[in-house]
């Protein structure tokens, strides 16, 4: 279970949000909304453990994420604005190396199967720099699928995806939730994900 307790975030001299409390249990989707600059990305970075909140704390299974350290990193997959894939590597290499570094070795057929799921089986041996923006986003989605994380933190996951890829990512997130995962999604678009429990947080209010 993820708990955010009395979080506040300050950027420069501006207070983006304060006194933010929420919690998420397995199978729950949190939809994060807010205008540009309302602090969605900052909140996601705090939840992923990359940034520190100005006040408050984040707890995972009842313990502060700071004290959990690498144990928490293993439970989190963060998909940022940037795809976090290397342009010089092929899609397969990207997946295999990313999982290898995370400590779960991924065989070549496994990587191919996942790329097929995201519709990139024909582009799997091309360096990622030759792919379109949407296709790169699909590689990033594939990386998400290879992670064994319980908590998915997704920042504008649908950016530059086409209709079929949007449906696809909705299905992936639905599956993840059905398997007892938690997803936190910042978005401007309508999400029509198959989620039983959805919690909406609006940072603009």
């Amino acid at each position, binding site marked *: 279970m993820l708990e955010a307790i009395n979080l506040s975030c300050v950027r420069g001299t501006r207070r983006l949000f304060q006194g933010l409390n929420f919690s998420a249990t397995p199978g729950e989707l949190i939809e994060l909304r807010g205008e540009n600059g309302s602090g969605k990305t900052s909140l996601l970075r705090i939840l992923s453990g990359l940034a520190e909140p100005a006040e408050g704390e984040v707890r995972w299974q009842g313990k502060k994420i700071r004290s959990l350290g690498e144990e928490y990193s293993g439970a989190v997959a*963060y998909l940022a604005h940037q795809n976090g894939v*290397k342009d010089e590597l092929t899609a397969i290499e990207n997946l295999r190396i990313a999982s290898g570094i995370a400590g779960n070795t991924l065989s070549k057929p496994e990587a191919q199967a996942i790329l097929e799921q995201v519709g990139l089986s024909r582009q799997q041996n091309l360096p990622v720099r030759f792919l379109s923006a949407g296709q790169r986003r699909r590689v990033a989605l594939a990386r998400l699928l290879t992670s064994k994380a319980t908590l998915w933190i997704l920042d504008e996951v649908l950016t530059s995806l086409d209709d079929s890829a949007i449906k696809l990512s909705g299905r992936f997130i639905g599956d993840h939730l059905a398997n007892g995962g938690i997803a936190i999604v910042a978005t401007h678009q309508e999400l029509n994900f198959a989620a039983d429990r959805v919690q909406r947080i609006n940072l603009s209010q």
Partner: protein
Amino acid sequence: MFGWLVWRDLILAWRRRADVLATLFFFVIVVSLFPLGIGPERETLKTIAPGVVWVAALLASMLSLGRMFGNDYQDGTLEQLLLTPQSTYLIVLGKTLAHWLVSELPLVMIAPVLGLQFGLSENSLVIIVLSLLVGTPVLSLVGSIGAALTLGLRAANVLVALLVLPLYIPVLIFGTGAVQASVNGTSPQAWLLLLAATVVLSLVFAPWATSAALKISVE
């Protein structure tokens, strides 16, 4: 996991080998300019050789520091690395090792050829290679701190030089000391041991400092 990380950086370096070669050629050219500028006086050349080779190695390794974390920072893979369930110390150590293999080891290998231009004896050439072999890991390790601190800043390259070059001074003194000793016909052993001590010291502290700096830079 460590192997995957080093492997990744080696592949990336291979696919962008022009960057690596540029650093190597910089080293070759800087070292070669001195005999051309100073003239063929054997004694003078022999005296300046250790200093020239070592200073050129410091400058060349400076040039490659920006690449150490810069590319990963820009495409978001650095964040992903920091979010893997591995200690940041190990990640930094892996990246530093890859940096040494890619950017420093070629300098070490080519140094004896360059030393020939200064009329150094065989024995001194061996000591040049040995001192660079022991000393250059410190350049990668200490340099990683500067590279991490200046991530995402404008004029990062100049700042890295200002931050890191003063920290390279002990390595420069010990490294040139070793070569100088062998040119003068005395034993370079003490200097090499001092160099080895700086390697151990920086191996313990530098990755730790770099991890802290990376966390600040990414935030």
